Protein backbone atom coordinates (compact mmCIF):
# COMPACT_ATOMS: atom_id res chain seq x y z
CA UNK A 1 0.00 0.00 0.00
CA UNK A 2 1.51 3.37 -0.99
CA UNK A 3 1.45 6.48 1.15
CA UNK A 4 -1.53 7.95 -0.72
CA UNK A 5 -3.71 4.91 -0.01
CA UNK A 6 -2.97 5.14 3.69
CA UNK A 7 -3.62 8.88 3.64
CA UNK A 8 -6.97 8.20 2.00
CA UNK A 9 -7.90 5.66 4.69
CA UNK A 10 -6.99 8.15 7.40
CA UNK A 11 -9.02 10.87 5.68
CA UNK A 12 -12.09 8.67 5.36
CA UNK A 13 -11.67 7.58 8.95
CA UNK A 14 -11.64 11.25 9.94
CA UNK A 15 -14.97 11.67 8.20
CA UNK A 16 -13.62 14.23 5.75
CA UNK A 17 -14.39 14.38 2.07
CA UNK A 18 -11.57 15.01 -0.37
CA UNK A 19 -12.90 18.49 -0.95
CA UNK A 20 -13.25 19.28 2.76
CA UNK A 21 -9.68 18.22 3.52
CA UNK A 22 -8.32 20.13 0.53
CA UNK A 23 -10.15 23.25 1.68
CA UNK A 24 -8.76 22.95 5.20
CA UNK A 25 -5.21 22.42 3.97
CA UNK A 26 -5.46 25.11 1.31
CA UNK A 27 -4.71 22.93 -1.69
CA UNK A 28 -6.86 21.85 -4.60
CA UNK A 29 -8.89 18.65 -4.31
CA UNK A 30 -7.36 17.57 -7.63
CA UNK A 31 -3.89 17.74 -6.08
CA UNK A 32 -4.98 15.80 -3.01
CA UNK A 33 -6.63 13.19 -5.23
CA UNK A 34 -3.38 12.78 -7.20
CA UNK A 35 -1.45 12.27 -3.96
CA UNK A 36 -3.98 9.75 -2.69
CA UNK A 37 -3.80 7.83 -5.93
CA UNK A 38 -0.02 7.81 -6.01
CA UNK A 39 0.20 10.07 -9.07
CA UNK A 40 1.99 12.88 -7.21
CA UNK A 41 4.94 12.48 -4.85
CA UNK A 42 4.56 12.48 -1.09
CA UNK A 43 3.93 16.09 0.06
CA UNK A 44 6.62 18.10 1.80
CA UNK A 45 7.00 17.86 5.57
CA UNK A 46 5.30 21.24 6.01
CA UNK A 47 2.31 20.23 3.98
CA UNK A 48 2.13 16.87 5.73
CA UNK A 49 1.89 18.74 9.02
CA UNK A 50 -0.96 20.86 7.66
CA UNK A 51 -2.77 17.73 6.48
CA UNK A 52 -2.26 16.07 9.87
CA UNK A 53 -3.61 19.19 11.62
CA UNK A 54 -6.67 19.18 9.41
CA UNK A 55 -7.36 15.54 10.28
CA UNK A 56 -6.63 16.11 13.97
CA UNK A 57 -3.65 13.73 13.89
CA UNK A 58 -0.17 14.22 15.35
CA UNK A 59 1.95 15.79 12.55
CA UNK A 60 4.87 13.41 13.17
CA UNK A 61 2.57 10.48 12.42
CA UNK A 62 2.19 11.38 8.74
CA UNK A 63 5.89 12.23 8.41
CA UNK A 64 6.84 8.85 9.87
CA UNK A 65 4.31 7.16 7.66
CA UNK A 66 5.84 8.74 4.56
CA UNK A 67 9.27 7.52 5.64
CA UNK A 68 7.94 4.02 6.32
CA UNK A 69 6.39 3.88 2.86
CA UNK A 70 9.75 4.74 1.31
CA UNK A 71 11.42 2.11 3.44
CA UNK A 72 8.84 -0.50 2.38
CA UNK A 73 9.80 0.20 -1.24
CA UNK A 74 13.50 -0.17 -0.44
CA UNK A 75 12.82 -3.46 1.38
CA UNK A 76 10.88 -4.78 -1.59
CA UNK A 77 13.60 -3.91 -4.08
CA UNK A 78 16.15 -5.59 -1.80
CA UNK A 79 14.07 -8.77 -1.73
CA UNK A 80 13.16 -8.74 -5.45
CA UNK A 81 16.04 -7.23 -7.44
CA UNK A 82 14.13 -7.63 -10.73
CA UNK A 83 11.67 -5.03 -9.48
CA UNK A 84 14.44 -2.46 -9.43
CA UNK A 85 15.16 -3.09 -13.12
CA UNK A 86 11.49 -2.69 -13.96
CA UNK A 87 11.17 0.58 -12.02
CA UNK A 88 14.25 1.91 -13.85
CA UNK A 89 12.77 0.89 -17.18
CA UNK A 90 9.54 2.71 -16.37
CA UNK A 91 11.56 5.78 -15.48
CA UNK A 92 13.73 5.48 -18.63
CA UNK A 93 10.63 5.36 -20.82
CA UNK A 94 9.09 8.24 -18.87
CA UNK A 95 5.61 6.75 -18.57
CA UNK A 96 3.05 9.43 -17.81
CA UNK A 97 0.08 9.19 -15.41
CA UNK A 98 -2.29 7.81 -18.05
CA UNK A 99 0.21 5.15 -19.10
CA UNK A 100 0.84 4.18 -15.49
CA UNK A 101 -2.91 3.87 -15.06
CA UNK A 102 -2.95 1.37 -17.93
CA UNK A 103 -0.10 -0.51 -16.33
CA UNK A 104 -2.12 -0.64 -13.11
CA UNK A 105 -5.11 -2.00 -15.07
CA UNK A 106 -2.96 -4.86 -16.35
CA UNK A 107 -1.76 -5.52 -12.81
CA UNK A 108 -5.30 -5.52 -11.47
CA UNK A 109 -6.39 -7.96 -14.15
CA UNK A 110 -3.43 -10.29 -13.92
CA UNK A 111 -2.50 -10.01 -10.26
CA UNK A 112 -5.60 -8.92 -8.32
CA UNK A 113 -5.15 -8.07 -4.67
CA UNK A 114 -6.14 -10.90 -2.34
CA UNK A 115 -7.94 -8.92 0.26
CA UNK A 116 -10.58 -11.03 2.01
CA UNK A 117 -12.35 -7.87 3.16
CA UNK A 118 -12.71 -6.74 -0.46
CA UNK A 119 -14.74 -9.69 -1.68
CA UNK A 120 -18.09 -7.96 -1.18
CA UNK A 121 -16.94 -4.64 -2.62
CA UNK A 122 -18.76 -3.70 -5.79
CA UNK A 123 -15.50 -2.79 -7.48
CA UNK A 124 -14.24 -6.33 -6.83
CA UNK A 125 -17.49 -8.02 -7.87
CA UNK A 126 -17.75 -6.05 -11.10
CA UNK A 127 -14.25 -5.74 -12.55
CA UNK A 128 -13.67 -3.89 -15.80
CA UNK A 129 -14.93 -6.77 -17.94
CA UNK A 130 -18.43 -6.45 -16.54
CA UNK A 131 -18.90 -2.76 -17.13
CA UNK A 132 -21.08 -1.54 -20.02
CA UNK A 133 -21.34 2.21 -20.44
CA UNK A 134 -23.95 4.10 -22.43
CA UNK A 135 -25.98 1.03 -23.33
CA UNK A 136 -29.15 1.52 -25.38
CA UNK A 137 -31.98 -0.34 -23.63
CA UNK A 138 -35.71 0.09 -24.12
CA UNK A 139 -36.83 -1.82 -21.04
CA UNK A 140 -35.50 -3.24 -17.80
CA UNK A 141 -35.70 -6.71 -19.38
CA UNK A 142 -33.03 -5.67 -21.91
CA UNK A 143 -30.83 -4.45 -19.06
CA UNK A 144 -31.25 -7.75 -17.22
CA UNK A 145 -30.34 -9.73 -20.33
CA UNK A 146 -27.25 -7.61 -20.99
CA UNK A 147 -26.16 -7.73 -17.36
CA UNK A 148 -26.59 -11.48 -17.11
CA UNK A 149 -24.58 -11.99 -20.30
CA UNK A 150 -21.79 -9.85 -18.83
CA UNK A 151 -21.81 -11.85 -15.60
CA UNK A 152 -22.17 -15.34 -17.03
CA UNK A 153 -21.09 -15.11 -20.65
CA UNK A 154 -23.18 -15.96 -23.67
CA UNK A 155 -21.77 -19.37 -24.63
CA UNK A 156 -22.83 -21.15 -21.52
CA UNK A 157 -25.37 -23.71 -22.68
CA UNK A 158 -28.43 -21.69 -21.73
CA UNK A 159 -27.44 -20.90 -18.14
CA UNK A 160 -27.48 -17.16 -18.83
CA UNK A 161 -31.03 -17.36 -20.20
CA UNK A 162 -32.14 -19.34 -17.16
CA UNK A 163 -30.54 -16.86 -14.74
CA UNK A 164 -32.01 -13.90 -16.65
CA UNK A 165 -35.42 -15.53 -16.30
CA UNK A 166 -34.90 -15.88 -12.51
CA UNK A 167 -34.01 -12.20 -12.24
CA UNK A 168 -36.98 -11.16 -14.42
CA UNK A 169 -39.35 -13.28 -12.30
CA UNK A 170 -38.04 -11.73 -9.12
CA UNK A 171 -38.23 -8.26 -10.65
CA UNK A 172 -41.86 -8.82 -11.63
CA UNK A 173 -42.72 -9.57 -7.99
CA UNK A 174 -40.88 -6.60 -6.50
CA UNK A 175 -39.08 -4.14 -8.80
CA UNK A 176 -35.68 -3.22 -7.40
CA UNK A 177 -35.60 0.42 -8.35
CA UNK A 178 -34.06 1.93 -5.24
CA UNK A 179 -34.04 5.61 -6.08
CA UNK A 180 -31.37 8.09 -7.16
CA UNK A 181 -31.56 6.61 -10.67
CA UNK A 182 -30.39 3.12 -9.68
CA UNK A 183 -31.96 -0.30 -10.25
CA UNK A 184 -30.57 -3.53 -8.81
CA UNK A 185 -32.06 -6.50 -10.64
CA UNK A 186 -30.74 -9.49 -8.70
CA UNK A 187 -31.23 -13.15 -7.90
CA UNK A 188 -29.74 -15.89 -5.82
CA UNK A 189 -28.76 -18.75 -8.11
CA UNK A 190 -27.31 -21.92 -6.63
CA UNK A 191 -24.22 -23.08 -8.44
CA UNK A 192 -23.58 -19.75 -10.14
CA UNK A 193 -20.52 -17.64 -9.38
CA UNK A 194 -21.23 -14.45 -7.51
CA UNK A 195 -20.78 -11.56 -9.91
CA UNK A 196 -22.19 -8.16 -10.73
CA UNK A 197 -22.43 -6.11 -13.90
CA UNK A 198 -22.53 -2.33 -13.95
CA UNK A 199 -24.53 -0.80 -16.77
CA UNK A 200 -25.14 2.87 -17.49
CA UNK A 201 -27.90 3.71 -19.91
CA UNK A 202 -27.62 6.04 -22.88
CA UNK A 203 -31.24 7.01 -22.37
CA UNK A 204 -32.65 6.84 -18.84
CA UNK A 205 -35.54 4.41 -18.41
CA UNK A 206 -38.71 6.17 -17.41
CA UNK A 207 -40.29 3.64 -15.06
CA UNK A 208 -41.97 4.16 -11.69
CA UNK A 209 -39.32 4.78 -9.03
CA UNK A 210 -39.52 5.77 -5.33
CA UNK A 211 -38.24 9.30 -6.01
CA UNK A 212 -39.49 9.72 -9.56
CA UNK A 213 -35.94 9.77 -10.98
CA UNK A 214 -35.60 7.65 -14.13
CA UNK A 215 -33.14 4.75 -14.11
CA UNK A 216 -29.70 5.75 -15.33
CA UNK A 217 -27.70 2.93 -13.81
CA UNK A 218 -28.39 -0.75 -13.28
CA UNK A 219 -26.27 -3.10 -11.23
CA UNK A 220 -27.23 -6.64 -12.14
CA UNK A 221 -26.27 -8.94 -9.28
CA UNK A 222 -26.06 -12.72 -9.26
CA UNK A 223 -25.28 -14.34 -5.94
CA UNK A 224 -24.30 -17.94 -5.43
CA UNK A 225 -25.63 -17.88 -1.89
CA UNK A 226 -28.35 -15.95 -0.13
CA UNK A 227 -28.29 -14.94 3.50
CA UNK A 228 -26.19 -12.23 4.99
CA UNK A 229 -23.62 -12.14 2.17
CA UNK A 230 -26.27 -11.30 -0.40
CA UNK A 231 -27.85 -8.68 1.86
CA UNK A 232 -24.48 -7.10 2.54
CA UNK A 233 -23.79 -6.67 -1.17
CA UNK A 234 -27.24 -5.15 -1.64
CA UNK A 235 -26.56 -2.80 1.26
CA UNK A 236 -23.32 -1.71 -0.37
CA UNK A 237 -25.16 -1.00 -3.62
CA UNK A 238 -27.84 0.96 -1.77
CA UNK A 239 -25.09 2.97 -0.08
CA UNK A 240 -23.55 3.74 -3.49
CA UNK A 241 -26.96 4.86 -4.73
CA UNK A 242 -27.31 7.20 -1.77
CA UNK A 243 -23.91 8.65 -2.70
CA UNK A 244 -25.41 9.47 -6.14
CA UNK A 245 -23.37 6.95 -8.08
CA UNK A 246 -25.67 7.28 -11.10
CA UNK A 247 -24.98 11.00 -11.30
CA UNK A 248 -21.24 10.46 -10.80
CA UNK A 249 -21.12 7.96 -13.66
CA UNK A 250 -23.05 10.21 -16.04
CA UNK A 251 -21.00 10.75 -19.18
CA UNK A 252 -18.20 8.38 -18.13
CA UNK A 253 -16.96 6.35 -21.09
CA UNK A 254 -14.01 4.43 -19.67
CA UNK A 255 -14.61 1.28 -17.59
CA UNK A 256 -11.42 1.98 -15.63
CA UNK A 257 -12.68 5.47 -14.79
CA UNK A 258 -16.10 4.06 -13.85
CA UNK A 259 -14.50 1.57 -11.46
CA UNK A 260 -12.31 4.27 -9.97
CA UNK A 261 -15.47 6.23 -9.19
CA UNK A 262 -17.08 3.15 -7.64
CA UNK A 263 -13.98 2.62 -5.49
CA UNK A 264 -13.98 6.25 -4.39
CA UNK A 265 -17.65 6.15 -3.42
CA UNK A 266 -17.15 2.84 -1.63
CA UNK A 267 -14.56 4.47 0.58
CA UNK A 268 -17.13 7.01 1.79
CA UNK A 269 -19.20 6.26 4.84
Amino acid sequence: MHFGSTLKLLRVDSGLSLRALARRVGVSSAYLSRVENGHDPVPTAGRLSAIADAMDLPPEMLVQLAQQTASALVDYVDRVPAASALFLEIARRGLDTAQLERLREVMDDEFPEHDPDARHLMSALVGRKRVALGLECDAIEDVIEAGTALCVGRDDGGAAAEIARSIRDREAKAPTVIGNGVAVPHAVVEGASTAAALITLATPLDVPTPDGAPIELAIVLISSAGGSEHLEVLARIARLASHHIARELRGVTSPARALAIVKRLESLR
Partner: protein
Amino acid sequence: MWSREDSAKTAERRVSVLIADPSPPMRSWLATTLSLSASGRPACSFVDDGVDLLYHLAEKGPFDLVVAQVALAGIDGGQVLAMARTAGLNTPFVLVSAVADDRLRSLIARTEPAALVDDPFDAPALVSAAKRLLAAAQPSPGRVAWRRAIAKWTTRAAGAAPPAARARAFR
Protein backbone atom coordinates in the same frame (compact mmCIF):
# COMPACT_ATOMS: atom_id res chain seq x y z
CA MET B 1 -39.81 -6.59 43.59
CA TRP B 2 -37.31 -6.65 40.72
CA SER B 3 -34.39 -8.90 41.71
CA ARG B 4 -31.07 -9.81 40.12
CA GLU B 5 -32.46 -13.32 39.62
CA ASP B 6 -35.49 -11.94 37.80
CA SER B 7 -33.15 -9.88 35.69
CA ALA B 8 -31.11 -12.95 34.72
CA LYS B 9 -34.23 -14.88 33.76
CA THR B 10 -35.47 -11.98 31.69
CA ALA B 11 -32.14 -11.65 29.94
CA GLU B 12 -32.30 -15.30 28.91
CA ARG B 13 -35.58 -14.84 27.12
CA ARG B 14 -35.09 -11.42 25.61
CA VAL B 15 -36.39 -11.15 22.12
CA SER B 16 -34.46 -9.14 19.57
CA VAL B 17 -36.31 -6.46 17.65
CA LEU B 18 -34.84 -4.26 14.94
CA ILE B 19 -36.63 -0.93 14.66
CA ALA B 20 -36.19 1.26 11.57
CA ASP B 21 -37.69 4.74 11.60
CA PRO B 22 -36.23 8.12 10.65
CA SER B 23 -37.75 9.83 13.68
CA PRO B 24 -35.93 9.40 17.03
CA PRO B 25 -39.12 10.04 19.08
CA MET B 26 -40.95 7.44 17.02
CA ARG B 27 -38.17 4.90 17.47
CA SER B 28 -38.32 5.46 21.23
CA TRP B 29 -42.07 5.17 21.26
CA LEU B 30 -42.00 1.91 19.31
CA ALA B 31 -39.40 0.45 21.68
CA THR B 32 -41.30 1.66 24.73
CA THR B 33 -44.52 0.22 23.43
CA LEU B 34 -42.92 -3.15 22.90
CA SER B 35 -41.10 -3.01 26.23
CA LEU B 36 -43.95 -1.82 28.40
CA SER B 37 -46.38 -4.26 26.96
CA ALA B 38 -44.21 -7.35 27.20
CA SER B 39 -43.22 -9.10 30.40
CA GLY B 40 -39.83 -10.01 28.91
CA ARG B 41 -38.31 -6.77 27.64
CA PRO B 42 -37.20 -7.12 24.04
CA ALA B 43 -33.66 -6.11 23.12
CA CYS B 44 -34.19 -3.33 20.59
CA SER B 45 -31.71 -2.20 17.97
CA PHE B 46 -32.33 0.99 16.02
CA VAL B 47 -31.58 2.29 12.54
CA ASP B 48 -32.79 5.42 10.82
CA ASP B 49 -32.51 4.56 7.12
CA GLY B 50 -32.99 1.68 4.73
CA VAL B 51 -29.32 1.15 3.99
CA ASP B 52 -28.51 0.65 7.66
CA LEU B 53 -31.53 -1.61 7.96
CA LEU B 54 -30.02 -3.86 5.28
CA TYR B 55 -26.60 -3.74 6.93
CA HIS B 56 -28.07 -4.64 10.32
CA LEU B 57 -29.99 -7.56 8.86
CA ALA B 58 -26.81 -8.76 7.14
CA GLU B 59 -24.35 -8.24 9.94
CA LYS B 60 -26.13 -8.08 13.28
CA GLY B 61 -28.92 -10.60 12.89
CA PRO B 62 -30.77 -12.79 13.24
CA PHE B 63 -33.57 -10.75 14.73
CA ASP B 64 -36.87 -12.12 15.99
CA LEU B 65 -38.82 -9.22 14.54
CA VAL B 66 -38.31 -6.17 12.34
CA VAL B 67 -40.53 -3.12 12.74
CA ALA B 68 -39.86 -0.66 9.92
CA GLN B 69 -41.30 2.41 8.31
CA VAL B 70 -41.82 1.96 4.59
CA ALA B 71 -40.66 5.53 3.92
CA LEU B 72 -36.96 5.27 4.75
CA ALA B 73 -34.07 7.17 3.21
CA GLY B 74 -31.73 5.22 0.95
CA ILE B 75 -34.01 2.30 0.27
CA ASP B 76 -37.59 1.86 1.39
CA GLY B 77 -38.82 -0.71 3.87
CA GLY B 78 -40.78 -2.62 1.24
CA GLN B 79 -37.66 -3.05 -0.88
CA VAL B 80 -35.72 -4.24 2.14
CA LEU B 81 -38.42 -6.80 2.89
CA ALA B 82 -38.33 -8.10 -0.70
CA MET B 83 -34.53 -8.26 -0.68
CA ALA B 84 -34.50 -10.10 2.64
CA ARG B 85 -36.87 -12.70 1.26
CA THR B 86 -34.76 -13.13 -1.90
CA ALA B 87 -31.76 -13.70 0.36
CA GLY B 88 -33.74 -16.41 2.16
CA LEU B 89 -34.28 -14.46 5.37
CA ASN B 90 -37.66 -15.20 6.91
CA THR B 91 -37.59 -12.76 9.81
CA PRO B 92 -41.11 -11.42 10.48
CA PHE B 93 -41.56 -7.82 9.30
CA VAL B 94 -44.08 -5.28 10.51
CA LEU B 95 -44.11 -2.44 7.99
CA VAL B 96 -45.66 0.90 8.87
CA SER B 97 -46.95 3.22 6.16
CA ALA B 98 -49.30 6.14 5.82
CA VAL B 99 -49.46 5.81 2.06
CA ALA B 100 -49.62 2.08 1.37
CA ASP B 101 -50.66 1.36 -2.21
CA ASP B 102 -51.90 -1.85 -3.81
CA ARG B 103 -48.37 -2.82 -4.85
CA LEU B 104 -47.11 -2.67 -1.28
CA ARG B 105 -50.11 -4.55 0.07
CA SER B 106 -49.62 -7.20 -2.59
CA LEU B 107 -45.91 -7.48 -1.76
CA ILE B 108 -46.66 -7.96 1.92
CA ALA B 109 -49.30 -10.55 1.16
CA ARG B 110 -46.74 -12.53 -0.86
CA THR B 111 -43.85 -12.27 1.56
CA GLU B 112 -45.04 -13.80 4.80
CA PRO B 113 -44.41 -13.51 7.64
CA ALA B 114 -45.11 -9.82 7.16
CA ALA B 115 -47.82 -7.37 8.14
CA LEU B 116 -48.76 -3.83 7.25
CA VAL B 117 -49.82 -1.35 9.91
CA ASP B 118 -51.51 1.70 8.44
CA ASP B 119 -50.23 4.92 9.93
CA PRO B 120 -51.61 6.60 12.05
CA PHE B 121 -51.99 3.67 14.38
CA ASP B 122 -52.20 3.00 18.09
CA ALA B 123 -50.16 0.68 20.26
CA PRO B 124 -52.57 -2.27 20.23
CA ALA B 125 -52.54 -2.33 16.43
CA LEU B 126 -48.76 -2.67 16.39
CA VAL B 127 -48.75 -5.26 19.15
CA SER B 128 -51.48 -7.23 17.48
CA ALA B 129 -49.53 -7.38 14.19
CA ALA B 130 -46.35 -8.47 15.98
CA LYS B 131 -48.31 -11.06 17.97
CA ARG B 132 -49.81 -12.56 14.84
CA LEU B 133 -46.49 -12.75 13.01
CA LEU B 134 -44.57 -14.26 15.87
CA ALA B 135 -47.26 -16.79 16.59
CA ALA B 136 -47.02 -17.94 12.97
CA ALA B 137 -43.23 -18.13 13.01
CA GLN B 138 -41.35 -21.31 13.74
CA PRO B 139 -40.92 -21.78 17.49
CA SER B 140 -37.48 -21.06 18.88
CA PRO B 141 -36.42 -20.59 22.50
CA GLY B 142 -36.66 -16.84 22.10
CA ARG B 143 -39.98 -16.98 20.33
CA VAL B 144 -41.54 -19.36 22.85
CA ALA B 145 -40.73 -16.77 25.52
CA TRP B 146 -42.02 -14.03 23.26
CA ARG B 147 -45.31 -15.84 22.85
CA ARG B 148 -45.66 -16.06 26.61
CA ALA B 149 -44.90 -12.40 26.83
CA ILE B 150 -47.26 -11.20 24.14
CA ALA B 151 -50.19 -12.74 25.97
CA LYS B 152 -49.97 -9.69 28.25
CA TRP B 153 -49.49 -7.17 25.49
CA THR B 154 -52.88 -6.39 24.23
CA THR B 155 -54.30 -5.34 27.57
CA ARG B 156 -51.27 -3.29 28.64
CA ALA B 157 -50.28 -1.78 25.32
CA ALA B 158 -52.98 0.86 25.29
CA GLY B 159 -51.24 2.60 28.20
CA ALA B 160 -48.25 3.63 26.08
CA ALA B 161 -48.72 7.04 24.51
CA PRO B 162 -47.33 7.94 21.09
CA PRO B 163 -44.74 10.69 20.85
CA ALA B 164 -45.93 14.23 20.29
CA ALA B 165 -44.76 14.26 16.68
CA ARG B 166 -46.81 11.23 15.80
CA ALA B 167 -49.69 12.28 17.99
CA ARG B 168 -50.15 15.31 15.75
CA ALA B 169 -50.65 12.99 12.84
CA PHE B 170 -53.49 11.31 14.69
CA ARG B 171 -55.68 14.40 14.55
